């Protein structure tokens, strides 16, 4: 079966700790760049997909850019867990004929200075802005002292260490590999070479996780343009096809008290089986992967979840340089990822995946044909497989 949709344009803004422009302008610049790359005009766009953590709404963006008749739009919840769902939703709409050109994007103003006077979704770390009374699931964590994502991830990482012998150096190797890739990428915010010793010397944030286990806080935006099979054939670029995709939201996600209680492994394993089955390929066929690396342990989980190694074997997989470009078994985040390029809630993983399949990455995998993009392992979850 021919793929139903393709990515035909990518665009991004400058990445910085503080851009000094509005989140709306970040979105406008990223979408402009992506449409120019595709050789399309705003009026050609008839679909729009975004996150619910976005402060820009569908209406804002359509009005701001003078889009065409936006006959398909969707907004997805769960932050980093849904940047693949956003694109999957776009591809599904294109396959169904509900749209012919869909823009998906993430624009972000999170630098501390950008956050002044802003609401919950715009600027600053959300966990610092929590209300004095909490009604949602955070009432089961924040009043007790578990207040930020890194602390949640630390509980997951610690248990992985207990169960599988994973070490702090395994986590460190993830950070070191991402930085190794970023040193080649002129857009990356962190380009100084990093060693395991640097990782070990960085301060603890939430043991066993250190500062260098954490992603950056970045202002910036990335956008992609997707087109239907028919439309993709007459755009400016060689299309990058959506070969397969999967999502899952079992009961075992995100909150530490649910994470270990409800057989998380089962849900992600079934999602992976659906993905590979739909695409008709195996993990060993994949040339590179873009994983949601908001924290280093999540790269280890992604390797296991999508079948690149066995359950509990990810530490050994990365220890020998398994995720490093150019010689690793699976080069991961060849742009430097959220850990070293920029934290655009995973959307810079799309731009890099497309660059790999166009042959234009600064850490190019020779002749890359198949790239997996996967969402945050800590959330309702998903992945999209892209092919040249």
């Amino acid at each position, binding site marked *: 079966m021919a793929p139903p949709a393709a990515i035909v344009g990518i665009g991004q803004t400058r990445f910085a700790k503080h851009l000094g422009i509005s989140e709306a302008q970040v979105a406008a610049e990223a979408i402009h760049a992506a449409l120019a790359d595709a050789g399309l005009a705003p009026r050609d766009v008839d679909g729009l997909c975004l996150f619910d953590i976005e402060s820009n709404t569908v209406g804002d963006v359509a009005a701001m850019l003078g889009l065409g008749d936006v006959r398909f739009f969707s907004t997805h919840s769960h932050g980093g867990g849904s940047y693949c769902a956003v694109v999957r939703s776009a591809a599904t709409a294109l396959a169904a004929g509900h749209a012919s050109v869909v823009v998906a994007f993430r624009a972000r103003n999170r630098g501390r200075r950008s956050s002044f006077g802003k609401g919950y979704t715009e600027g600053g770390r959300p*966990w*610092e802005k*929590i*209300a*004095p*009374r*909490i*009604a949602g*699931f*955070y*009432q*089961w*964590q*924040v*009043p*007790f*002292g*578990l*207040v*930020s994502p890194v*602390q949640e991830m*630390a*509980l*997951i990482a*610690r*248990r992985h260490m*207990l169960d599988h012998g994973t070490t702090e150096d395994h986590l460190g190797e993830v950070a070191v590999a991402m930085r190794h890739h970023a040193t080649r990428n002129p857009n990356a915010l962190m380009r100084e070479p990093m060693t395991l010793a640097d990782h070990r010397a960085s*301060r*603890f*944030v*939430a*043991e*066993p*996780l250190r500062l260098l286990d954490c992603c950056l806080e970045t202002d910036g935006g990335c956008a992609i343009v997707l087109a239907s099979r028919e439309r993709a054939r007459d755009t400016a670029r060689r299309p990058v096809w959506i070969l397969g995709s999967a999502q899952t939201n079992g*009961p075992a996600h995100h*909150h*530490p*008290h*649910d*994470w*270990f*209680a*409800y057989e998380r492994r089962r849900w992600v394993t079934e999602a992976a089986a659906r993905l590979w089955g739909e695409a008709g390929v195996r993990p060993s066929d994949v040339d590179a992967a873009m994983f949601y690396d908001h924290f280093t342990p999540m790269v280890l989980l992604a390797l296991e979840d999508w079948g690149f190694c066995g359950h509990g074997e990810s530490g050994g997989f990365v220890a020998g340089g398994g995720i490093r470009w150019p010689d690793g078994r699976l080069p991961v985040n060849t742009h430097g990822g959220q850990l070293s390029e920029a934290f655009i809630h995973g959307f810079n993983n799309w731009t890099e995946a497309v660059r790999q399949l166009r042959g234009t990455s600064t850490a190019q995998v020779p002749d890359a044909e198949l790239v997996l993009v996967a969402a945050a392992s800590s959330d309702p979850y998903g992945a999209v497989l892209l092919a040249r």
Partner: protein
Amino acid sequence: MADVLPPLPQPNPDTQEFWDGCRRHELRLQRCDDCGTARFSPRPACPRCASLRHTWFTAAGRGTVYSWTIVHAPTLPAFAARVPYAMALVELEEGPFLVGQLRDCEPAKIRAGLRVAVRFEDVAEDVALPHWRPA
């Protein structure tokens, strides 16, 4: 009582009984009337069998450490004076997991399987918060 209050819970009909229990220094949990599974956090249906029927009970308040982290800065102002502090994911005797501060325990002594018991601290007129100590 801390100078800066942590964010406090805003109970709703699903969660009121848990927080009322804390005020009485009792750990109140739900148990499914159909499959018998005890659960946390409170919710209207059973994650195992989807039954809408449940009964509240008072848990023993004992469990073991399943995972933990030592929290360093940054954290919220209410917890800044405690840094570094231990947060444990506790597996209760009745089955469910929940998180809480682990107090009165040197970080080097924390390990998986460490037996812990719940304590409560009155932090506001209408709120008491649970934490954990070695048992």
